[in-house]
């Protein structure tokens, strides 16, 4: 019995450890609609997860330093509807992401569009985001 309880707690702990640390909030509570960003860099990781995906990108600062970005995307089902696939995320891929910077975390952004090296462009924004013309018509 004790072993079972331990295993359940272990499993819960393991599941919790990989969760995003961001609580549910309004877009404008986390991101600044007045701070649009265009990020050109290398995508190192993509979390294809609910309720939102996360793109991890490294960009190069003017000083030459590498900056790590964590970019929120729409839910995977929405990404799929817009034609984006898990297989599109390849090792060492470069891409351009347009979106909005986090209010308090300068390495956080909410993505609106993703343009891959081959020129394909995808809408990756959450439903109901800023009406900035990035939405698919």
């Amino acid at each position, binding site marked *: 019995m004790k072993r079972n309880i331990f295993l359940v707690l272990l499993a819960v702990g393991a599941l919790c450890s*990989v969760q995003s640390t961001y609580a549910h909030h309004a*877009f404008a509570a986390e991101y600044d*609609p007045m701070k649009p960003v265009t990020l050109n860099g290398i995508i190192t990781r993509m979390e294809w997860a609910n309720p939102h995906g996360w793109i991890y990108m490294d960009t190069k600062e003017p000083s030459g330093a590498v900056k790590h970005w964590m970019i929120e995307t729409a839910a995977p089902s929405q990404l799929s509807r817009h034609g984006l696939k*898990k297989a599109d*995320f390849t090792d060492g891929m470069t891409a351009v992401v347009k979106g909005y910077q986090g209010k308090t975390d300068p390495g956080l952004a*909410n993505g609106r569009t993703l343009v891959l090296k081959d020129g394909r462009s995808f809408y990756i924004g959450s439903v109901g*985001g800023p009406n900035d013309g990035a939405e698919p018509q």
Partner: protein
Amino acid sequence: MAFFRRYATSAFVLCGICVLVGCSKPAPEATPAPAAPPYHPVASIREVMNSVIDPNVDVVWNAVKTDIDHGKQIEHAPTNEEEWAAVRHSALTVMEGANLLMMPGRAVAPPGAGSLSPGIELAPDQVRALIDKSPSGWNQFARSLQDSVQPALAAIDKKDPQALFEAGDKIDEVCESCHQVFWYPAPAAGTSASAR
């Protein structure tokens, strides 16, 4: 025959009186005042959200996902009875947590607490006003939350990772729908997308 006629009339009248007396309603009793509910809400809605709903729906959402690390796809899903049981526990907790949200008499936030994002997310008294204005709408969203987790629970019982993943998206849609009405409606927020 005359004997029968003489007593039949009396017997018929007597039976009629019995039927009328037997079928008449009893004297109405005074309606008792409604008893106080046996439950006692302790946590506020915000606390239920942060302590019950959110951490457990995160377990459901995170149970199945793909981590693409430098192009390598790493699939995550429960792999044994204990892990499935843990996800089921969380799914059930969210579903029952929805009942907690519907219980009348629960404060929106702890005493003295304000909006977590003034000007963007409503203050507790504003949320209270919206709930009081449309308690049925509030309850309907809570029921929708409960219903949205049902496919996830079914997927868990079938140990079907793909179905669980697809169910997760629907749960978020319900969360957002409610938040955009009761927490950060568009006029107050300016924008209405969620952020996690």
